[in-house]
């Protein structure tokens, strides 16, 4: 963070003090930043932040349970888009026993799902929210699991490491301990046989449109509205994602995404863990791009620690992250084609090069997808001398490919060639053009209002990329452009990914020669402790993930475990405008619109 940019945040808060006086309070706790807004003026202040100060994109809404002080705090982070700079942090508090805050959905529609999440997991009501119901847990769930006094089934202890493991570690399986014991909470009057999913009936009833309103686009013909349930077990929803749509003929009039089928309360697991233990868990968020998740978490905690990273480690990180971005975009393009009905031929061509990249990941980190590569202060390993291993088991076939040669060939020849081939195969294909052009249009102002980031935002004509907007790592020294497309339709969301792969290749072509020069240098600074202690405070760290902005909001109380570990998942927030994009399109187009947003359920449901 340079001085000029933090200056803009300060002058912005000064303006707020001037305008609202007592309603705004500076946050003077050590290690915290931003302002505390009194809850009765929250909407006015938010409006002013958006309109007067120009912080037009509400990126993150986090919520913290200060159990000892008996209040909940909701923390908002807003950006200036596309100007860039660090986020403006403002927060509001509400007492624990009667948690209610005004909803900001009227100011920023991007608060919609995030407020529902805060209600679901923390039990904070948002007055004025149009659809405040549970989003990640199921509708019959009892309690709010992110509260600090909530205990999960098979609860052992508040913090890892658990004391039973050593020195007297008699092994014990969690499921052998009272599976239906006191830890599991049910709503009053619940029986397994008597359960009927009322939430579904309410969901469908909410979507059904009264008869008089029917006939969108079709005049004079009496049409019926039909509620159709797409997913969760559906191959084209990219996992266990469910869309309930109201159809008029084939045209979508309403759409509501239903999610949480893969919810495992990642954030609560993260709060039980120590800081380092969370690193392999971040692999499981967006499992296509685990390296980028590692990077986002590492830079967040390093910022809190004040830890420096050696130059070679930065190079290795950028190498891995940009390779991940290429892999992810290839994957997204390939499976968009699957959604279009081109069954697996283009997607297999697209992910062919992925195998080679994963070979490099495997040789470097030990795993193809769950890389667990970054550490606080560097990376876990240097590049291996060669790719391949000794043949040991029967049937093993050994290979030996020199790593630097491999990287060189990959980055300068193989990947550009395959990109060109994909370009020839897809970009001018008539079927793709007719299916994608003008479908699922997301105008720039809507994209910003709904908090879209990453390729989805940039395809709508907003050149906003965190690598340039709030630079981190060594991206300032690297030469690349922020790709941007202007139509905001599915075709542009396809093209923007091709453009971004080209830009990533440009970065890689600069990084690979530098890796040769810095061979043998230190790749992990410091003492490499397994139990880092983070100073008291709070930080919101963000990273330009392939799918959008991945943010970690971490609150530390000075112990070995994070007090709060919140994730701003790009997939989760990028589908907030899904209904806006799908309304008026055909049902078959909804599938490709969803495909063009590029979601991964591992991070959407967390």
């Amino acid at each position, binding site marked *: 963070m340079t001085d000029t940019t933090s200056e803009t945040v300060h002058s912005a808060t000064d303006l707020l003090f001037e305008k609202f006086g007592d309603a705004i309070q500076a946050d003077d706790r050590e290690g915290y930043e931003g302002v505390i807004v009194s809850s009765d003026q929250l909407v006015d202040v938010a409006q002013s932040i958006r309109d007067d100060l120009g912080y037009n994109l509400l990126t993150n809404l986090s919520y913290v349970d200060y159990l000892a002080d008996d209040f909940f705090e909701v923390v908002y982070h807003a950006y200036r888009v596309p100007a860039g700079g660090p986020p403006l942090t403002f927060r509001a508090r509400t007492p624990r026993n009667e948690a209610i805050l005004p909803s900001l959905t009227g100011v920023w529609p991007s608060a919609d799902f995030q407020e529902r999440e805060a209600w679901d997991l923390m039990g904070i009501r948002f007055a004025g929210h149009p659809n405040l119901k549970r989003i990640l847990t199921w509708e019959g769930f009892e309690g709010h699991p992110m509260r600090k006094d909530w205990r999960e089934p098979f609860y052992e202890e508040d913090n*890892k*490491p*658990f004391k*039973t*493991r*050593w*020195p*007297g*570690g*008699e*092994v*014990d*399986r969690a499921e052998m301990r009272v599976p239906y014991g006191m830890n599991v909470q049910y709503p009053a009057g619940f029986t397994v046989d008597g359960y009927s999913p009322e939430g579904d009936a309410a969901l469908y009833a909410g979507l059904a449109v009264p008869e008089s309103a029917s006939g969108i686009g079709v005049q004079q013909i009496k049409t019926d509205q039909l509620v159709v349930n797409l997913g969760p077990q559906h191959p084209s929803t990219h996992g266990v994602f469910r869309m309930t749509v109201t159809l008029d003929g084939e045209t979508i009039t309403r759409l509501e995404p239903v999610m949480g089928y893969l919810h495992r309360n990642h954030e609560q697991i993260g709060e039980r*863990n120590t800081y*380092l*233990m969370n*690193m*392999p*868990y971040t692999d499981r968020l967006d499992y296509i791009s685990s390296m980028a998740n590692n990077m986002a978490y590492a830079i967040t905690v390093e910022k809190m620690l004040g830890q420096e990273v050696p130059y070679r480690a930065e190079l290795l990180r950028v190498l891995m992250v940009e390779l991940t971005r290429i892999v992810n975009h290839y994957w997204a393009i390939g499976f968009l084609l699957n959604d279009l009905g081109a069954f697996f*031929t283009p997607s297999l*061509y697209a992910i062919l090069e992925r195998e*080679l990249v994963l070979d490099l990941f*495997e*040789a470097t*980190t*030990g*795993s193809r997808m*769950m890389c*667990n590569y970054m550490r606080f202060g560097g990376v876990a390993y240097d590049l*291996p001398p060669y*790719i*391949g*291993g*000794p*043949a*040991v*088991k029967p*049937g*093993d*076939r*050994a*290979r*030996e*490919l020199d790593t630097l040669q*491999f990287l060189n*060939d*990959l980055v300068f*020849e*193989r990947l550009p060639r395959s990109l060109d081939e994909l370009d*020839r*195969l*897809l970009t*001018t*294909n*008539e*079927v*793709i*053009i007719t299916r994608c052009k003008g479908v699922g249009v997301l105008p720039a102002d809507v994209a910003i209002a709904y908090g879209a980031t990453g390729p989805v935002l940039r395809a709508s004509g907003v050149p906003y990329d965190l690598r340039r907007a709030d630079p981190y790592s060594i991206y300032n020294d690297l030469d690349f452009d922020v790709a941007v497309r202007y139509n905001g339709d599915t075709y542009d969301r396809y093209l923007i990914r091709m453009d971004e792969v080209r830009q990533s290749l440009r970065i890689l072509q600069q990084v690979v020669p530098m890796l040769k020069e810095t061979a043998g240098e230190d790749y992990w600074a410091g003492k490499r402790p*397994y*139990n880092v202690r983070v100073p008291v405070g709070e930080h919101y760290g963000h990273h330009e993930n392939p799918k959008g902005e991945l943010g970690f909001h971490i609150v530390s109380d000075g112990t070995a475990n994070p007090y709060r570990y919140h994730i701003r998942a790009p997939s989760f927030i990028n589908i907030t405008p899904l209904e806006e994009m799908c309304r008026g399109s055909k049902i078959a187009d909804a599938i490709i619109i969803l495909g063009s947003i590029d979601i991964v359920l591992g991070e959407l449901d967390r």
Partner: protein
Amino acid sequence: MYGVGILKGLGITLKHFVDTYVDDFKWGIRRYTSDEGFTARQGLETEGLFTVQYPEEKIAVPERFRFVPFLVVNDQDHATEPDADWCTSCGICAKVCPPQCIWIIRSTDPDTGRPVPQPKDFFIDIDICMNCGFCAEFCPFDAIKMDHDYELSDYDRTSTHIYNHAKLAKPLSYWQMIAPSRAEQERLSREADEAAKAARKRK
């Protein structure tokens, strides 16, 4: 003009199809029998089909590959202490394990009741293990390592998936076989450490 893009696309599909056979003619049977042929098939030169005929042939995993830990013990023909544990039951692996799947019982001396640096038993619940490799990374004694055996399917998980010490212990020679260069590197650094320690003592 309509159809040009589709024809171009079909041409690319045809090219991939033909490339597989071009490679086959170029290499002949060696593409499937020799190691060079395999490297070419699974490397950057390959143009056509990319597949490996699993389980008849398997890609040998790299040295750093990690899957379910094992405990290093001395070889059976070790001069003084055959089969002796390297593990001192210091508990760092159990403390650093993210899903907390490692359980160690520390031995105590029956006479004095003092702890002995040796595990009495050692359990890993491999259903819970997430293969992150932290235990091996942070072990100060090189006593726990990540295995390369990824074919662990079983008919019954409840009785077989908690590995005890007997199932986890593997000789040093096994580690030297699956990861030769890393084992050698570790040996050198251990020797350097010991030499440094001896030098300090002499002072």
